[in-house]
């Protein structure tokens, strides 16, 4: 197996891919805009409570809802029937100086008795913590963009850095949009996954760019478009294989990793696909669009 040479013309379907990317990015920008206005963000960024309760006996979602409604708090409930658990989420931190977890505990104690449930986990985030986090997250994304551009500008050339950064942020923004429309709330875990994917997508882009640089030096062709196309084809095997092995990991996480890591695994899975796509269809054509000059390449 193994020795084959691809010869796809990736520029041929550029119009379609550019259209797809623009739509994805617009959806993402919409999602980010909504998040900055407080929609679609988890308690890490909005403040609030997420309380995980394990029931000793099987208990239906309607009954859980009924019990929760007695607290007077409008909980958003995630039911995990296989594990006999429920996660109670609310953007409230406290009511009249009573902690939300205490209020829920009191109701559950009354309805289910002491042996009927265990409060397995509480995540309570105050408003100051969440607003600080929002600021930190924004700074982190800006800093990483600057870091990437500077490094690649130093190693390659300015335009390579910019193209790689655009491709990477294309992925991050597109995934944010998809997650938003899938109904996932942005939290620290998703943010971590996004930065991880930024790293992955970047690796992918760097591998292709490296080949483009090499082929520009070797003067494989005088036509920039052709050089780029040849480079993508030459690295295609590696691109596919690494995507496959990384997908093995992210799918294992998605299927066996449990509820806590689900959103993380989805972001990684989406990221592997979109990251691979963007190295080929966004980053490389951008080099062509920006007309990189082979003479400016560093050694």
């Amino acid at each position: 197996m193994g020795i084959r040479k691809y010869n796809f013309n990736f520029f041929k379907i550029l119009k379609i891919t550019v259209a797809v990317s623009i739509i994805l990015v617009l959806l993402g920008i919409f999602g980010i805009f909504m998040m900055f206005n407080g929609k679609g963000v988890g308690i890490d960024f909005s403040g609030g409570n997420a309380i995980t309760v394990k029931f000793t006996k099987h208990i239906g979602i309607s009954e859980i809802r009924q019990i929760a409604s007695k607290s007077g708090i409008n909980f958003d409930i995630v039911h995990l029937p296989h594990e006999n658990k429920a996660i109670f989420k609310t953007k409230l931190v406290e009511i009249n100086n009573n902690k939300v977890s205490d209020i829920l505990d009191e109701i559950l104690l009354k309805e289910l008795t002491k042996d009927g449930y265990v409060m397995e986990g509480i995540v309570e985030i105050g408003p100051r913590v969440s607003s600080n986090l929002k600021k930190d997250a924004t700074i982190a994304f800006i800093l990483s963009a600057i870091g990437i551009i500077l490094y690649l500008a130093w190693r390659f050339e300015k335009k390579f850095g910019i193209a790689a950064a655009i491709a990477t942020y294309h992925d991050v923004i597109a995934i944010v949009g998809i997650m938003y429309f899938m109904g996932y709330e942005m939290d620290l875990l998703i943010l971590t996954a996004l930065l991880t994917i930024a790293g992955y997508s970047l690796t992918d882009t760097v591998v292709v760019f490296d080949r483009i640089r090499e082929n520009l030096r070797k003067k494989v062709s005088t036509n920039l478009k052709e050089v780029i196309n040849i480079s993508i084809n030459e690295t295609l095997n590696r691109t596919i294989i690494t995507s496959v092995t990384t997908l093995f990991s992210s799918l294992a996480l998605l299927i066996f990793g449990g509820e806590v890591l689900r959103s993380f695994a989805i972001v990684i899975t989406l990221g592997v696909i979109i990251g691979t796509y963007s190295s080929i269809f966004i980053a490389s054509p951008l080099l062509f669009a920006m007309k990189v000059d082979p003479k400016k390449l560093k050694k």
Partner: protein
Amino acid sequence: MKRLDWRFYLIILFLFGSIYVLIPTFVRDIPKNVRKFFIVEPVKLGLDLQGGIHVLLEVDTKKAYEADLLGKTSQIKEALSKKGLLYEYVKVENEGIVISTPFKDKWDEMEKIITKELFSKVDVIKVKEDSASITYRLEFDAKIKEQVEQSAVKQALETIRNRIDQFGVTEPIIHTQGKDNIVVELPGIKEPKRAIELMGKTAMLEFKLVREDITPEMISKGNIPLEVELIPERRINRETGEIQQYTIAVNREPLLTGKLLQDAQVRINNQFNQPYVWMKFNAEGARVFERVTGENVGKRMAIILDGVSYSSPVIRDRIGGGEAVIEGNFDFKEAADLAIVLRAGSLPAPVKVIQNITVGPTLGMDSIKKGLVSTIIAFIAVLVFMAVYYKKAGIIAISVLILNLLYLLAVVAAMRATLTLPGIAGIILMIGMGVDSNVLIFERIKEEFRIGKTVRNAIESGFKNAFWTIVDSHITTLITAAILFQFGTGPIKGFAVTLTIGIAINLFTVLIGTKSVYDYLIWNKKITKLSI
């Protein structure tokens, strides 16, 4: 010429080192006399895996500064009274002190006492002057405020550490974060709610004289003198055990505070079988207690904790010995915790829980189990794929991957870094992403081979050409990983640590490990065919 060189031995050395470091993690119940040969502790698990609480407390530094200013007003009042200088009032207002006096001609003398004898670095600003009186405002240097706030946070930290130590938690982590936050991490704690209450209690103990001359009518009209305040009092009906709230009027100025306390213990009241807290003052406290009770025989004294009176008995006689009790409808745990906070001292300012992450032990176990299953499945999938696709080269890649994982865990254990759930997710991802460097090299070797190079040349130039690609891609990933350190919370930091160590190790194993295996094959085995 080349044989098994230093790189090979280095890999083997690290391999045995890693196994040695990881034995305490994977083998439980090592006999004690054997255990001492393993100097490294097991891998430290984050709170999200072993259970526990992570609490972020915010110290109300504004209140601490107010309290400091309140102390200064007493100093001013005392100094002025001593000199026979009269004032209308001295009070704290909007982070400053306001003094008003009808004796305008005496102000210069007053100001001299305040600015020369009492405090330095204070601005005196005239606020108001009319025919009846003159009013000045004192503003202290911003540095003083900063100092007071800093020392309040430091003192709060010490007090909380004291309380936690007395509560009995193994390996608590307590440190400040930012200007006015305190992080408390308590792994494996059984009663999280109780611990959080224990930390957050201000535990300000005060003894104040009850003003029985203030009638309920005056209270309802809000017609009370400046030196008097209204506070709630809890009274318990002994028969029903019900708690009722009353309002009582007391002097603002306390007779005595908990600062002079030496000890506090839980005792059981034999008559009602009720726990209560017994307190003992130090020598100075006992003297003050004896004096103030002697001066106020026949009056009532309220025992106040955090602004709530627990009882206000009539002082029947001068009380020597410096002992007092707090009774309430406590259960034993409540009384025990109260004794702890009284012993450990009060917080200099109220603290507020602004973040609380509590993870029960079962939730953590569950996460570890699922993480392990995912790791194994991901590993098997990658192993089978690599072995089928790259044949013998694939086996090399997998061996390198195993080295990666072993080294990673060993470094995490040796550095006492914390393994968190996202950290485990990072390890699982590393299984998939970690083979990438080898894939890059293999694909390069195949290409070189295809253009007609010999096996040896193909391998040599394959490595050479892939080298910078691998370095560049690792460093760019490192940049994003480093930025994750920004996020203070435990789990994400744990992920950043795992990812960063993973990247560094990957770079090492590929550039040193894979390379030396191929060098060995070329030079010693003189391979002429590629199984790739």
